[in-house]
């Protein structure tokens, strides 16, 4: 058997672990949109538990493995989902990235801390480099020769488990209702909830599965890796490479890529001897592949920039305060700090800690520029600082004057920043983050290993900075110098935000396409941001090194950037204040812990669990304080305003609306045009009358509903009711609030005031999926199908057995295996409504069902509605084009400016009324 075949077989076996880990990563990302950097940490925890159960408590390996993988890991996944991921999914990209990075720090620390605490009393082995975890197989492992390659029992088991996991995962996703729901939620989350699928439960399931896979990978890998949490993080990066090759979507491709990586690593180790001279190049192979994969495979079509519209800046909660009051806390803090510093002796320990904190604060200011303002998450910041410090040291020892060396260092970092910005031009979001991570690791593993540049492990000596009258060996001088520099950076950032470039940045960030069409150069803006940020980080790095007296390649490791980012974002990354606070906390907090004799693990846990806070308050602690103050006053205001709108809705109706004296509320418009009410009755009476007459028969009712998006109120007191076997057409001009009414009715949008009633039961607080399960079905605007699922799977989301649909609609039967996205528009609309025919809902709300359909097809759609009416379904039909809706409707409601301005039987609708409603001349 040739050497090459041996490498390939053996590589496939070891690639299995990457494959399992990467599959979990892809699964949870695809299902929830959160890229879990802590996936490796979950694996580490499972491995730690496995080790303690097996070696510590003496359980047999299979039992310990079973507990760690099938009990502990799913539980951990569920707990993380509840505590964090659920909130993170809505929190915007920066918070997602930072939150899970925080977990990468916190989870291993938590596990090790617990082991530290219980090791002594329970007599457990400690989990350090001396611990020797065993594998799942026989112990010691038995050697087996397969196809001429000698493998041990642990390796074989790994491969077998990986294949079983892959097969099980495939069967679960394809052939169980849970898998179908999960895929439906992935495909169109909002639609899934409208079909009665609890998307939250699907996410929980995804996290449970993902976590189980991470746990399995951890337990399988631990005999080779040892209990080294860094090694698990490294394994995560390798797995991320596989996941990227699967484009973070396809689990089979991810799995294959994982296996391939194992082979590639073996081939590189076996044959790439030419790389021996470049230290670290071979270690960095997965990182290089990761970077290549990101650049080549993820030229994202939909999201071009490092920017996400949902990541819009929060409102300025302190805008109503006078300038002096806004600045007061900072001025007081600064004065106190300076006063305290200058009264301490020159060799005071705490002053040097504060100085250290301020150096970090200066470096952290670079996060404010690139992440806070630019909206791009950069994990290479520590490498920029390191780069600048090493360049400065190299230049200084080459005989250049120190000031020149400093400038060279800062310029060096800036240049690298521009280089990093180049991939950023076409990558966005997580992909950009991963790319910066790959570059940071590449710098650590290859560039900083170049002896000529970093002077080996010795590093470079740097002098203190002299100011003429004093020098920075005195920490007090450092504090003052740093405060001045941070102040300058603060001014710079403020000016940047207010300048034309600041507006350009904001434009590129929130709407890249729009910015480009308006002539704002996105690439230039981004390059400038990266250059500026890396320059600031570089200056911080040089000062860090100068104050420390020396710099080596390992002083500011890439992984330090993780902790930094977590700390800054936790304080608030949009303001310099957050950076300053973050720097001080990062330096002072560990000292305090040490003084109180608290384990360093606790510090890591606290820094890391900041992610949980981010899940709820994505803009950090500082913004949170301002927001809390704002909210207290705001809550009162909001309630008052909603009540005001409701009252206004009532009183406005009192005046006779033009085009008829009918009123907004449920004028008792009997089915099939048996109009009853006194058209001249004032609104107050009409509402009561509505309650008496229309309310009696109504299956579904909206009562004086006020709702909107953020600060914008769209519905301003909507009353509407539908009875069983009745079609109500809701008509109105564009922007009248029709779709918002639908969303409120289906539970897709919460109400600010008012009630939603289903058969007399108040369902206002029910989430969309619960309303759907109780029979309120919304066919949303556009097509209500899951484009990524097949026709059959689409039907199964609402029907246990889709066969009756095929009998009624043979053209769907022919295409049952085709993805719904490939159907024509008409077929898609039929597919949306077909399930309702077989299993009729109690209430069907159709939002623009004929939009974009050929007239013949639209006709068929309206036939379906007629049939449903015959079967007693209450139908609310929203149409912009009135004609066909009017033909079908029993009752008609006109909407304008967030209110129902007229309701009545179809027979009373005439040209004047229509025109009035559409042209908005009603008021």
């Amino acid at each position, binding site marked *: 058997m040739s050497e090459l075949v041996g490498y390939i077989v053996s590589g496939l076996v070891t690639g299995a672990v990457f494959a399992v880990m990467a599959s979990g990563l892809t699964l949870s990302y695809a299902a929830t949109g959160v890229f879990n950097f802590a996936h490796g940490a979950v694996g580490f925890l499972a491995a730690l538990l496995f080790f303690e159960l097996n070696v510590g408590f003496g359980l047999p390996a299979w039992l310990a493995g079973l507990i760690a993988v099938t009990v502990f890991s799913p539980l951990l996944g569920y707990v993380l989902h509840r505590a964090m991921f659920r909130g993170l999914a809505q929190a915007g990209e920066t918070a997602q990235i930072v939150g899970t990075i925080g977990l990468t720090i916190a989870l*291993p620390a938590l596990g090790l801390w617990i082991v530290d605490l219980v090791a002594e009393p329970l007599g457990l082995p400690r989990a350090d480099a*001396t611990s020797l975890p065993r594998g799942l197989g026989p112990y010691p492992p038995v050697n087996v020769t397969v196809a001429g390659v000698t493998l041990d029992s642990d390796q074989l088991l790994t491969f077998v488990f990986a294949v079983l996991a892959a097969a099980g995962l495939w069967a679960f996703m394809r052939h169980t209702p849970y898998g179908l729901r999960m895929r439906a939620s992935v495909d169109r989350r909002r639609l899934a909830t409208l079909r009665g699928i609890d998307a939250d439960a699907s996410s929980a399931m995804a996290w449970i599965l993902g976590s189980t896979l991470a746990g399995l990978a951890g337990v399988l890998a631990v005999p080779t890796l040892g209990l080294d949490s860094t090694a698990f993080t490294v394994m995560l990066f390798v797995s991320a490479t596989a996941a990227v090759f699967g484009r973070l979507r396809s689990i089979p491709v991810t799995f294959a890529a994982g296996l391939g990586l194992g082979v590639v690593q073996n081939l590189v180790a076996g044959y790439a001897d030419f790389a021996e001279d470049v230290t670290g190049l071979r270690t960095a192979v997965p990182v290089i592949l990761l970077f290549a994969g990101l650049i080549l495979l993820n030229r994202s079509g939909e999201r071009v920039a490092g920017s996400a519209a949902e990541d819009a800046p929060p409102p300025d909660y302190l805008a109503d305060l006078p300038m002096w009051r806004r600045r007061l806390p900072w001025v007081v803090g600064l004065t106190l700090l300076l006063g305290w510093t200058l009264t301490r002796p020159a060799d005071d320990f705490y002053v040097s800690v504060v100085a250290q904190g301020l150096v970090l604060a200066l470096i952290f200011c670079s996060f404010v520029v690139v992440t806070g303002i630019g909206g791009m998450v950069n994990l290479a910041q520590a490498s920029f600082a390191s780069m600048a410090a090493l360049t400065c040291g190299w230049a200084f020892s080459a005989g250049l004057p120190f000031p020149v060396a400093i400038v060279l260092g800062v310029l060096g970092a800036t240049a690298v920043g521009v280089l990093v910005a180049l991939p950023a031009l076409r990558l966005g979001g997580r992909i950009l983050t991963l790319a910066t991570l790959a570059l940071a690791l590449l710098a650590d593993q290859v560039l900083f290993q170049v002896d000529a540049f970093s002077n080996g492990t010795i590093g470079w000596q740097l002098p203190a900075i002299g100011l003429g009258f004093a020098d920075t060996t005195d920490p007090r001088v450092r504090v003052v110098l740093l405060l001045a520099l941070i102040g300058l950076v603060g001014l710079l950032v403020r000016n940047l935000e207010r300048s034309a470039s600041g507006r350009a940045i904001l434009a590129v960030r929130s709407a890249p396409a729009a910015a480009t069409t308006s002539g704002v150069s996105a690439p230039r803006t981004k390059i400038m941001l990266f250059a500026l940020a890396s320059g600031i980080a570089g200056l911080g790095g040089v000062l860090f090194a100068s104050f420390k007296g*020396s710099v080596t390649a390992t002083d500011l490791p890439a*992984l330090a950037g993780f902790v930094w980012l977590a700390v800054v974002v936790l304080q608030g990354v949009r303001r310099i204040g957050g950076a300053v606070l973050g720097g001080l906390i990062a330096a002072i907090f560990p000292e305090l812990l040490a003084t109180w004799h608290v384990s360093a693990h606790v510090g890591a846990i606290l820094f890391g669990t900041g992610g949980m806070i981010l899940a709820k308050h994505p803009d950090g602690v500082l913004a949170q304080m301002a927001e809390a103050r704002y909210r207290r006053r705001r809550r009162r205001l909001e309630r008052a305003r909603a009540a005001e709108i409701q009252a206004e809705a009532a009183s406005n109706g009192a005046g006779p609306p033009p085009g008829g004296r009918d009123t907004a509320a449920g004028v008792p418009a009997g089915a099939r045009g048996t109009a009853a009410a006194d058209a001249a009755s004032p609104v107050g009476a009409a509402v009561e009358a509505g309650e008496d007459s229309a309310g009696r028969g109504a299956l579904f009712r909206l009562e004086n509903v006020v709702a909107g998006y953020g600060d914008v109120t769209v519905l301003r007191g909507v009353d509407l009711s539908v009875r069983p076997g009745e079609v109500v057409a809701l008509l109105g001009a564009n922007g009248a609030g029709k779709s918002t009414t639908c969303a409120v009715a289906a539970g897709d949008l919460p109400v600010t005031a008012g009630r939603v009633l289903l058969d007399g039961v108040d369902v206002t607080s029910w989430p969309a999926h619960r309303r759907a399960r109780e029979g309120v079905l919304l066919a949303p605007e556009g097509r209500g199908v899951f484009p990524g699922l097949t026709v059959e799977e689409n039907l199964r989301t609402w029907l246990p057995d889709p066969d009756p649909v095929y009998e009624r609609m043979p053209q769907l039967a022919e295409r049952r295996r085709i993805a719904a996205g490939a159907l024509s528009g008409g077929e898609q609309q039929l597919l949306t409504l077909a399930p309702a025919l077989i299993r009729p809902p109690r209430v069907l709300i159709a939002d623009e069902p004929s939009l974009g359909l050929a007239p013949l097809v639209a006709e068929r759609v309206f036939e379906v509605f007629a049939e449903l009416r015959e079967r007693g379904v209450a139908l609310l039909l929203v149409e912009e084009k009135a004609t066909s809706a009017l033909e079908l409707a029993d009752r008609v409601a006109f909407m304008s400016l967030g209110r129902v301005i007229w309701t009545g039987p179809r027979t009373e609708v005439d040209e004047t009324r229509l025109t009035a409603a559409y042209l908005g001349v009603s008021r």
Partner: protein
Amino acid sequence: MGRQAVRLVGLVAAAALAAAGCAAEQKAAGGGGSGGTPGVTATAIRVGGVLTKTSASGYSTKDAEIGARARFERANGAGGVHGRKIEFVGAEDDNQDAAKGDAAAKKLVQKDKVFALVPVHGPNFGGAAFLEQQGVPWFGWATGPQWCGTRTGFGYNGCLAPKPGAGSQTWWGNQMAELLGGSEGRTVYVQTTDSSGSKYGGKTISQSFEAAGFKVVGINSGLPAAAPPPDWLPYVNKIMTSDGGKAPDLVVSIIAGTKFNVGLYSALKKAGYEGLLSDATSYDAAILKDQATAQALEGVIAAPMFEPFESDAPEIAQLKADVEKVAPGTVLTQHLAIGYWSADIFLKVLEQTGKDLTRERFLATANGSFAYENAGFGRIQYPRDHNEPNGCGALVKLEGGTFKVAKNMKCFDNVPLK
């Protein structure tokens, strides 16, 4: 960029330049100043250490604290040094993080006001520049270049990271040659990881074996530095064919981390390797507790840089008794020995400095042709050993599940590092 912003960028750059100053020379701050020597009273000398107690990789040197405490307790039991007892405040944890090590050193000097740092033992210790600038003595295991060439950093067995041209050890090769009854015609393969630190180790150690007459048939630095490779096959294949298609007589591993070594040795044995194995880190009693590890390491010749605990030298008996007194039942480890011997040398310098104790006088004594021999660690001479290793080491062999002394501590002449 707006014009104002441009102006501000310029301003910041100018400020940086101004900050750098026209005269960027560094003032020597000096240690003591007025008001007596920090950490020294008429009856006590305060010392504390910096160790890597916890780290992300699990590497821990925390046992050095027990070793140092045991040695200090004995000195205190004997009445202290010149009437002063050692007040040992314990050791800080640097988490294997250079910046934290720097902060820990500052804390000990500025807040706890210690006289000296003993023991200092962390692969990534970052406080060297500060201590050197403040003139504070520090004692420990000088594995990194930050120790070397200083006047305040005292490695208990010298500087283990000599610069090219300075002396480099030959004891490992020579001891091995003596153990095998000659090096004539024997081949050695050196395995390191893919990092500049490990490559440097590979260079000094292959030189040690060459100086002793071995033929080095390969130095491989292909192992990934970050984590053990999941698959050892490619590395093992290289070793098994390195001696003209045959396996070498001896494989020396310059990899820290039991996981690495266990993986390498198991894979070699799986591939049918029957030669000798040697490394610097496998001398660890904890290893024996695990059956599979003990099996993988069976026959390995470890190379500790202190007299093995199995030795019958009286110094070792004393060490065991001292440790038993402060921490009964402690398992003796490499790190414990390093802490113990670092403290021992520190006490010797204190004793020679005399009653009148300042940091300047202490350093003057230590750096003024100080020489001290002890069977526990061989010999030490400062200032020479600020720049090169002391050249002493021992060999132990794992046989039938227990460590046996193969060669007692012995010193050899260094050769200049190429």
